């Protein structure tokens, strides 16, 4: 889980266009309040799909799933469970 969190932070650093360093974010920090726009969030989704070799189903393509490192990690955990 913590390894995933580090990979998620690296994706956020490259694509979320946050107004602060992704490394300093808590797991439950609100990414939208940290400056991630809905446009940037699409790039984050794409990069996460590439990084973790997953596809987010449409029901996961909503704001709350990508609102924090913890929420993203939970979604990825669900998609990679049993691998």
């Amino acid at each position, binding site marked *: 889980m913590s390894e995933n969190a580090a990979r998620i932070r690296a994706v956020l650093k490259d694509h979320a266009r946050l107004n602060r360093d992704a490394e300093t974010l808590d797991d439950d920090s609100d990414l939208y309040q940290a*400056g991630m*726009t809905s*446009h940037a969030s699409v790039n984050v989704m*794409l990069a996460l*799909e590439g990084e973790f070799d997953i596809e987010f*189903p449409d029901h996961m*393509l*909503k*704001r709350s799933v990508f609102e924090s490192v913890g929420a993203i990690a939970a979604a990825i955990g669900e998609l990679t469970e049993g691998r």
Partner: protein
Amino acid sequence: MTTLSAIKTGPLLARTAAIATDVAACHAADVDAKSRFPQETFDALRQARLLSAAVPATHGGAGAGMLELGTQCAALAQGCGSSGMVLAMHHIQVACIARHAQGSAFFERYLRENLVERQELVASITSENGTFGDTRSSVCAVAIDGDRMSLEKDATTVSYGQHADAQLVTCRRTADAAASDQVLVLFEKGNYTLAQTGNWDTLGMRGTCSPGAKFSGHGTTAQILPGSFADSSAQTMVPYSHILWSALWSGIAADALGRAAAFVRAGARKNPGSVPPNAVQLARAQVELQAMRHNWESCAIAFDEMTAEDDQAAREALGTMGWALKMNQLKMACSEMAPKLCHEALQIIGIMGYKNDSPFSVGRHYRDVLSAALMVSNGRIAAKSASMLLVFKDD
């Protein structure tokens, strides 16, 4: 949920259609020529207590759903496009307040006393110099000092701002908030100034009176709508805007084609026994008008079904990419179809449609709907859809 047949025979539509015919249509040419607010229409709507159609019944309003509001806006736009647009925008603001007030005493009182009892009109200020048309980002921020707050905003367009009783304004939540971390703040007349910074001399939608303005307002923190604009935008402002606008554009196109149909009938009466060539053109145009109507109606029905149980799951569903794409596609389809249909009406009618002083004139209709692809630029919407489709699977 109210069915379409119940809406079509209901009092809201009947009373609005009467005002569209007896008031709005009579003044539409003058409103357009002088680029003035359709005051007569709104006096009549206020008197008939139709301005609170979108206020929930629990707060004393008619509690009309999206399908009924769309039908109402389309009916009014058949008489006067600018009137239909102002009514739609008012409903959008009212819906944001009604659906996101979350038990706030200030907003509940506002709904009941100002919107229902006094039938007040609400404008919004979402545009701003420096955001380049992106309503989901703000430069200005609300300044909070204890329970007092103030806000200044340099807006590029404020529709009917000078004619409204209140302004619902987007801004950043705090001075150090990100550009997209926004809230909506309501300012009532007497607590703000609007200094006009430009003119509103446009091709169409001239009665919406939407020049730029510098806004300066103050009040208490109770006037800040609870929650975030990210949610009220996705769950309310965007669906209400795109569905009600599409509805009123279809109303304008229907009136243009209605004039074309009257022209074709008049010609046919002179020569019974043969179908005139322009009747075939009309038949083809009606295919597109029906598709356009069904497009917005089906989105409105979907919205009313989704919000019948207005719980967290319903709100989340309105925040999904699938719904956002559906709204974008509706807006692009109807905003592009309306000018095409006005163009078709003009081809069917010919010179009598081109003349401004003819009963078959469709010039105002055509000019009004040319705004459709620009108010929230279709280029911007297509780019957003394109981006979403990179991750959306339609599974």
